[in-house]
């Protein structure tokens, strides 16, 4: 079983939660009410924590790989140079030195925060997927991934509660909030298809027994999303076409700006300890 498959699969999982955590962190100090500022920050911290565990695992895999196997892992020159020079790679090298075309997060998580409804919609769609994914990933033959999944699942159970309740509150609140929540769900729905479309890495990981067949999660996802949308007295969103590409390194324009902001210190002052 190829450690490259495990590496790429792990990075894909890590990128999702890092980008999501980064998006939520931007709300800090700007929420509609203090208590919710704290709630969102908690979710962000959980996700950044998951990202760290996954990147640390990915770094470990790289460090234990024979040189020949890792000679051309990334397009990022600084990172690849470090790898080729036998430096010990860390979680930060992976988070801060890759450019957008090396990131494998889904498009959904890089969408803008927008207003509260847009943020709730994005979390609502993503966290429900994470819940089903981690539940299945607990059975991974890779014990590290299984352990990370088990720990993360507890956190995600809280996340889906938070997001679902807000969808209901806004959907069944005032006429204004109903309209806004409807618009937001409708705007973000077209990014959910990608979550259940297996890319080559996911197929290989599934065949190797370490990864999840995400296409098999779609039915349960649809049912669970519908149940909440109904309770919120909203209409299920529709999409003429599902957007894809993130999982293959083809992103929206948002990711470039996000990475420019996130990585700038490491880029401006390379090879330093912080």
């Amino acid at each position, binding site marked *: 079983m190829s450690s490259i498959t495990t590496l790429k699969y792990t990075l894909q999982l890590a990128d999702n939660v890092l980008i999501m955590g980064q998006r939520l962190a931007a709300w800090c100090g700007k929420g509609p*009410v*203090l*208590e919710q500022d*704290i*709630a969102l920050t*908690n979710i962000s911290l959980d996700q950044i924590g998951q990202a760290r565990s996954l990147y640390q695992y990915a770094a470990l895999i790289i460090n234990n790989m024979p040189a020949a196997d890792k000679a051309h892992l990334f397009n990022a020159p600084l990172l690849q140079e470090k790898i080729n020079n036998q430096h010990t790679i860390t979680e930060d090298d992976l988070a801060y030195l890759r450019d957008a075309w090396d990131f494998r997060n889904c498009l959904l998580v890089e969408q803008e925060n927008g207003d509260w409804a847009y943020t709730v919609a994005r979390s609502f769609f993503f966290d429900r997927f994470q819940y089903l994914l981690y539940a299945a990933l607990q059975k991974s033959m890779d014990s590290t991934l299984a352990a990370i999944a088990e720990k993360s699942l507890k956190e995600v159970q*809280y996340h889906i*509660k938070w997001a679902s*309740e807000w969808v209901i*509150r806004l959907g069944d609140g005032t006429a204004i909030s109903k309209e806004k929540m409807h618009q937001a769900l409708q705007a973000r729905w077209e990014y959910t298809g990608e979550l259940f479309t297996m890319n080559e890495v996911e197929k290989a990981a599934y065949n190797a027994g370490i990864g999840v067949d995400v296409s098999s999660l779609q039915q349960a996802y649809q049912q669970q999303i519908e149940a909440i949308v109904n309770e919120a007295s909203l209409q299920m969103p529709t999409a003429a076409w599902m957007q894809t590409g993130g999982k293959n390194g083809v992103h929206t324009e948002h990711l470039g700006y996000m990475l420019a902001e996130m990585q700038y210190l490491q880029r401006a002052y390379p090879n330093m300890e912080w």
Partner: protein
Amino acid sequence: MQKKEKQKKQLKFIYMSNENKEWPLWEVFIRSKAGLDHKHAGSLHAADAQMAIESARDVYTRRMEGISIWVVESKHIHASNPEEAAAFFDPAQDKIYRHPTFYNLPDELKHM
């Protein structure tokens, strides 16, 4: 002066439309893993009980302080009258025979 007045008027409008819509205040009680009782941890604002419990978890248990949370809307808490504290509580002060340390028992006596 004029700009400030205008700003104040605008804000007043927002608050008036929010009149009576401020989320109620809740008191939070938490029992820690090792604890036997729920202790008062503080208060917060929430629109409903479900939100209050979750906010309590977010605000008051970040350092793993708790295992059980109770929330009560502040308006439902009834407290003893501090002016009556003397009548309420002083009489208990001199009934020290209620305390175990009041009794002189031999040192050899165990399990009591």
